[in-house]
């Protein structure tokens, strides 16, 4: 039952092959049995899940269910959930119970999904390996010695291990796509503004975007549609109709114009990873896609640009965690300054502090022009590069990450090496573009098969095309169907 996709589960529920309660108990059992070794969940909401499942079964019995009614899901612990602990995997919020639901949470709830729990993540979504979590690292189901990627590492591990059929993620600089690539999932980050950020605890507001981690493009289409759309509570959400993504999956590959990003096939790319991505390109070509090289010369600026913009915004966004109204407060503060310094000093982990300090620095008087303003100019150049490319091609293609999953601890002492893991994914965030990562094969590392992902990026609001291309590719391949050994 647990290896079925969301669309298969939904069909089974509607056909009354199994009840939502059966399904939910089954997944809760798997979480209990397999969750601890992966450390994928921060909070399991068993009681809530059973309530949701019973309500879903009632709706289904009346024939009132929608395409997701009764399907269990998990939320990254960055989304506020009413009455449920919402930690952002930080000591700062380890005891924080949100008093409201994020828009993404309420939309999926309205669609009838069942909430299994809240997944582990890099602290405040800052990290690429899920090793910055206050609750400890998440392990990759394909190899427990390796990271699942980050920051949505708990969601990725949970879905990859089939202990949750699908999960939400957030992607500020690759945090959905890179974990998807490292765990053999389909992960989509929609256009900035497509999904409401309300209730999603902000890291870098101009880059943060919610999305989906699932086991097929079809699932991603169903789930994305259910969370998308204008929200009056988020001024940056866009008032534009949401397509029926699932109904648009059958756009043919024939004639599709694919641009291969030259700058993303250079130094640093693992040859074995490149080989799998090239093979996928070959398949697309074989199915009638028109492939050409494109050059986006400003893309190498992505990582340095990101590491100015994102810390700048985070340094301000995280100021509200001051020990005054919510979150961690130090014991016996002797005065206001002491309250601030110790509450924040104790509540935040090393990577979060590093980014707050970086961001504070780049916004400081005398440095603003040299860093923040300069980064904004680079951002405009990157966006212009993409816009130019999309005059000639429908999507651009690259690897999602330069290597397959790396070992726990391998990059924790070298922030730059860690940051470079997002070298191919960050540009889409800076340009506000939709991106998807899909499985495209495996590499053998030390006798273990590790998944490889390829990334497609489209023009603004081009999610439908990205999902369709991915779905068509998945009609010709079964990489996405493979489940990590021991979890099938």
């Amino acid at each position, binding site marked *: 039952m647990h290896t079925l996709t969301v669309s298969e589960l939904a069909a089974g529920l509607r056909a009354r092959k199994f009840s939502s309660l059966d399904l939910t108990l089954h997944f809760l059992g798997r979480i209990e049995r397999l969750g601890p070794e992966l450390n994928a969940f921060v909070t399991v909401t068993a009681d809530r899940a059973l309530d949701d499942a019973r309500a879903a079964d009632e709706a289904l019995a009346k024939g009132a269910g929608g395409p997701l009614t009764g399907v269990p899901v998990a939320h990254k612990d960055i989304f506020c959930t009413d009455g449920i602990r919402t930690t952002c995997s930080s000591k700062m919020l380890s005891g924080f119970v949100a008093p409201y639901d994020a828009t993404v949470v309420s939309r999926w709830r309205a669609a009838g999904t069942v909430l299994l729990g809240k997944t582990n993540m890099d602290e405040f979504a800052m990290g690429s390996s899920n090793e910055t979590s206050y609750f400890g690292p998440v392990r990759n189901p394909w190899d427990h010695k390796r990271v699942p990627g980050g920051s949505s590492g708990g969601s990725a591990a949970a879905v990859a291990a089939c202990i949750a059929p699908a999960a939400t993620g957030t992607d500020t600089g690759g945090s959905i796509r890179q974990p998807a690539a490292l765990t053999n999932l389909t992960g989509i980050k929609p256009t900035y503004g497509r999904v409401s950020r*309300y*209730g999603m605890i902000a890291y870098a507001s101009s880059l943060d975007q919610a999305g989906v981690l699932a086991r097929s493009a079809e699932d991603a289409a169903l789930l994305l549609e259910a969370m998308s759309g204008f929200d009056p509570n988020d001024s940056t959400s866009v008032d534009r109709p949401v397509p029926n993504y699932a109904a648009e999956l059958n756009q043919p590959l024939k004639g599709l114009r694919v641009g291969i990003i030259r700058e993303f096939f250079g130094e640093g790319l693992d040859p074995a990873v490149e080989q799998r991505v090239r093979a996928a390109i070959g398949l697309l070509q074989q199915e009638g896609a028109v492939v050409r090289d494109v050059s986006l010369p400003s893309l190498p600026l992505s990582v340095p640009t990101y590491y100015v913009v994102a810390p700048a915004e985070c340094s*301000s966004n995280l100021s509200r965690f001051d020990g005054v*109204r919510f979150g961690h407060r130090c014991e016996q503060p002797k005065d206001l300054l002491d309250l601030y310094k110790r509450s924040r000093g104790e509540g935040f982990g090393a990577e979060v502090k590093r980014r707050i300090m970086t961001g504070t620095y780049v916004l*400081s008087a005398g440095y*603003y022009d040299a860093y923040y303003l300069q980064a904004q100019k680079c951002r405009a150049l990157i966006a212009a590069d993409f816009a130019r490319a999309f005059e000639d091609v429908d999507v651009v293609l690259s690897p999602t990450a330069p290597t397959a999953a790396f070992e726990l601890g391998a990059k924790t002492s070298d922030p730059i090496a860690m940051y470079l893991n997002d070298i191919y994914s960050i540009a889409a965030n800076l340009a506000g573009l939709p991106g998807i990562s899909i499985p495209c094969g495996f590499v053998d590392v030390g006798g273990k098969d590790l998944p490889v992902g390829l990334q497609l990026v489209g023009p603004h609001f081009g999610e439908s095309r990205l999902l369709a291309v991915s779905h068509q590719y998945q009609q010709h391949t079964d990489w996405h169907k493979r489940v990590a050994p021991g979890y099938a």
Partner: protein
Amino acid sequence: MSWETVIGLEIHAQLATRSKIFSGSATAYGAEPNTQANLVDLGYPGVLPVLNGEAVRMAIRFGVATGSKISRRSIFARKNYFYPDLPKGYQISQYERPVVEDGSLEIVLEDGTRKTIGITRAHLEEDAGKSLHEDFHGLSGIDLNRAGTPLLEIVSEPDMRSAKEAIAYLKKIHTLVRYLEICDGNMQEGSFRCDANVSVRPVGQAEFGTRAEIKNVNSFRFVERAINYEVERQIELLEGGGRVKQETRLYDADKGETRSMRSKEEANDYRYFPDPDLLPLVIDEATIEQVRATLPELPDEKAARFVRDHGLSEYDAGVLTSSRELAGYYETVVRRLGGQAKLAANWVMGDLSGALNKDALDIGQSRVSADAFAGLLARIQDNTISGKIAKEVFEAMWSDGKGADEIIEAKGLRQITDTSAIESAIDDVMAKNPGQLADYRSGKDKLFGFFVGQVMKATGGKANPAQLNDLLKKKLSG
């Protein structure tokens, strides 16, 4: 050496919107602490600001009324600093691109001189909450009801050269924002506040002197005192060979002095940057024109009309248009009277204003309505009572709320206009005062007043003064 004072004002006008600038919470004053603060105002994780369109329209109203440029595209920025009454750790404000720029306002000084004061900019921002340091032993209380209340910060050019000019400008802005109905102007409740940038320089010097910013001045009187104190302080400092430090100073109303709060070096680096949670504020021409079309008659236009149509002096017109309500009251009185604009002006500025001041009431709270007040003036106009008696009638109206006619009848104050009645009163007075009569007739003209007084006394003040004059003159001259 003689010195020139240079003053610029930063005025914070709390916009009279029903809800906050970025949240749906109410903005009413005086509610129980923290009952008008929702998750957005509390800066909860995950919440986002949504701009209140009404606050924007109010800012446009101000801009249009001051001939300013309305920015087609302005930006909200974050001003970052830590303080417990600033829940997010930053204040959303406008920094590099404010919504209103480059306006001006004309002030009229007491001697009738006119002067134009430049308005550099006016920008939208949110207010912080309040920290309460009394009442909590060793602790501070935080009230976030005010957090997120919309403010329009109006920044003048350094165009004012005396405290008097600064007050005239401040009052003019105060009048204007109330005319525009964008701010209630209540200084006690803090909905209209002012910081003053003050510097001095030797007369004739082109460069400005080093300025001090005086914060926390919450009445017109205190602004004037604070500026005068600060000017004296700076001149004394400079003449003693010292230098003025650029700093923020607080005005202490009890001691009547300013004192240093923080120096420029201690000032926060606010790390302003565009708020990524809010889109640029885009205002199109149609919106501006729509606002322009719904502007009320502004104080200057109204005053000019009072001069033109009612024949008032500029000074009187200025006083009567200082608030929209006062002008409205005055105009209602004139309309009811069907003219007599000067009589109405004198009475509104005289007895009515006096009574209001005495009881510390606004014109809107007047115990005598405009209609009732016109009723009183009508009795002066038709000679039922004299102006002097009218004062007595007005006092009675003010204290017991009755109409003029009722009081006149009840107290028998109707003026005596019957010639024979006045004549017989004169005859009596002449008969009783033969000595004075003889003196008058032998050339002591001054005694005329004595006879007027005696007759008035005899008639209980009700004799028509003009008639009395005529008849008395005739009789006395024999």
